[in-house]
């Protein structure tokens, strides 16, 4: 069923059970996520769940309403104007097998492997069999991009799109949404593809994993796609359910980062320009390339930006709270900006041409982040390699494991 405040039936007489407390929509039981106040209107005490507030309020006074799940066999042809690589074709067939036999899979794929296309064949089959399909991700930027890509391929299908504040719905039979949106579904989806599984906040938040389970039917096929699988996920699908996809869609190796041992923060705190970094940026621009500079925190980024902007005026800095964020990313795409300083917000989802990457204080990032940042480079067929530099003050486990993972991917052969 689908929880909907205009639904015809009542799922629960109130969304929040004050004793407990428990939110019947998202399963939250943690006291700190409930807020209580005396309603000025009639003085009654109201408690609501802050955890799922973005889906509309679930509270102790209002019933949770719902509509029943509907399945409809729908012809859903797709078009693809290029041929899948042998690795993509292999993965596509494995997903199809998993779907037909009701099993789940983990696609352990390098960034830029072309994961979305591997699901098209199965989605078409599922829709024709009348199965409800969801393509989900914890990240809004991934959700938006996937919705565009699926829309281009499945031209005749109405694909729902849902994330915070956005709700374009056809019939909930072919849906692209954030994981949070699944709180509104119970036993509804038969085929769920979870992209960027490792991305915040899925691993830290067991409630989201519960949401995926509750939204899917008992026999559902779940496909998890990630570049950095957690042990918990591998356990979830079993060893046989893991497929490794070590090559990028264009077949080139992942770029190996180069280490530069240097303490940039120290330069900044002493009002010195970090010479090695400045020279490197100069070289990159001289080669008519572009660069993303990842910085672990906003205050350091702002200080560093001042120094860089003086010498390289075609530069900008973005972070998650920056109202101009999308505008600056657009300028980088149009090549008006050549040096873009960023926090981890741009570690996923973005693709730029002729791009290099510099990671400042790489010792401050974990392996998952480092792998994603490296994955920004060499995504285009026309520029498949690129350069990556790690500036680090000291060696860490995260840096070591990043090098090992990339080396393993590059050494691996396609199982096909």
């Amino acid at each position, binding site marked *: 069923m689908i929880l909907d405040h205009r639904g015809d039936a009542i799922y629960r007489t109130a969304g929040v059970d004050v004793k407990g407390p428990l939110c019947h929509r998202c399963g939250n039981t943690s006291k*700190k*996520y409930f*807020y209580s*106040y005396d*309603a*000025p*209107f*009639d003085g009654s005490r*109201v408690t*609501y769940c*802050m*955890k799922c*507030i*973005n889906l*509309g*309020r679930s*509270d102790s006074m209002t019933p949770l309403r719902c509509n029943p799940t509907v399945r409809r066999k729908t012809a859903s042809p797709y078009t693809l104007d290029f041929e899948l690589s042998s690795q993509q074709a292999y993965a596509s067939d494995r997903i199809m097998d998993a779907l037909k036999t009701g099993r789940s899979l983990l696609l352990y794929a390098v960034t830029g492997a072309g994961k979305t296309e591997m699901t098209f064949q199965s989605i078409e089959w599922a829709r024709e069999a009348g199965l409800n399909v969801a393509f989900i991700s914890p990240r809004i930027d991934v959700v938006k991009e996937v919705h565009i890509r699926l829309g281009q391929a499945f031209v005749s299908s109405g694909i729902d799109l849902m994330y*915070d*504040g956005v709700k374009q719905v056809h019939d909930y039979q072919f849906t692209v949404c954030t994981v949070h949106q699944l709180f509104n579904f119970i036993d509804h989806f038969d085929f769920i593809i979870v992209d960027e599984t490792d991305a915040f906040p899925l691993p830290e938040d067991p409630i989201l994993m519960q949401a995926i389970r509750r939204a899917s039917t008992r026999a559902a096929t779940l496909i998890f796609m990630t570049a950095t699988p957690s042990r918990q996920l591998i356990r979830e699908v079993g060893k046989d359910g893991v497929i490794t996809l070590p090559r990028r869609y264009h077949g080139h190796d992942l770029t190996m980062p180069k280490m530069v041992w240097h303490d940039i923060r120290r330069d900044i705190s002493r009002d010195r320009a970090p010479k090695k970094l400045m020279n490197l940026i100069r070289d990159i621009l001289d080669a008519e390339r572009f660069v993303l500079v990842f910085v672990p925190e906003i205050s350091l980024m702002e200080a560093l930006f001042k120094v860089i902007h003086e010498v390289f005026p075609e530069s900008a800095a973005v972070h998650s*709270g920056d*109202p101009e964020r999308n505008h600056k990313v657009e300028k980088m795409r149009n090549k008006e900006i050549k040096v873009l300083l960023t926090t981890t917000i741009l570690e996923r989802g973005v693709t730029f041409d002729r791009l290099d990457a510099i990671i400042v204080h790489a010792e401050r990032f974990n392996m998952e982040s480092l792998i994603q940042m490296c994955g920004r480079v060499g995504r285009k067929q026309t520029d498949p390699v690129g350069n990556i530099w790690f500036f680090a003050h000291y060696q860490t486990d995260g840096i070591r494991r990043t090098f090992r993972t990339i080396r393993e991917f590059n050494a691996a052969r396609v199982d096909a």
Partner: protein
Amino acid sequence: MICYCCHEALAVQLDIVNLFSKQVPLCEKCRREISVWRPGRRCASCHRRMSDEEVECLDCLFLLERYQPPGKTTCLLDYHEMNKMLFHRYKFMGDCALAEIIAMFLPGHYGEYDVITPIPISTQRMTERGYNQTAMVLDAKGIQYEELLGTSRVKRQSELGKNDRSRQENPFFISRPAGIEGRRILVVDDIYTTGITVHQAMEKLHAFRPAAIDVLTFSKA
């Protein structure tokens, strides 16, 4: 405790400073983002961001031809993406914990005024929403106010164009005429869009000859 804005857990640090002060449900990151003012030239009276060609604020000119202006208009927060989202959640999603967050940006003292009065909402809206979004912020700050005005308006203002709004009949009425004459009044509204709402409210108040009227808005769209 969590930040009511981003829902991240707040680290509890007991130092000599916050040992004596109550911990607030807002993280430093959100506080900074909410406080940002986008750069650009602004109208000195309504704080709207003006285009380069505008010599005088067109919104204010429009109002000046039709209504008596307030003494001054104070605006607490810029209406950028972050704050748009914040007010949307607060007003339309029922996330009333955010009243406490908005209240943190309100000044604490209002010695220059005799009466503070919020823009009212209709009984029907009150039944649906359960709270007046403006008054609830004043309550959260512990500010005394008097409800001088009432309204029968139901249709959402955001659904109407500017000319439609001004052509509409004034939807407000005075519910407490005795509290107005000769007093210095602060009218509080949540979001100042075209300014017509607050000017219509002032028009009704002016009829009862207050000493002065100023306006405070939480944000300027």
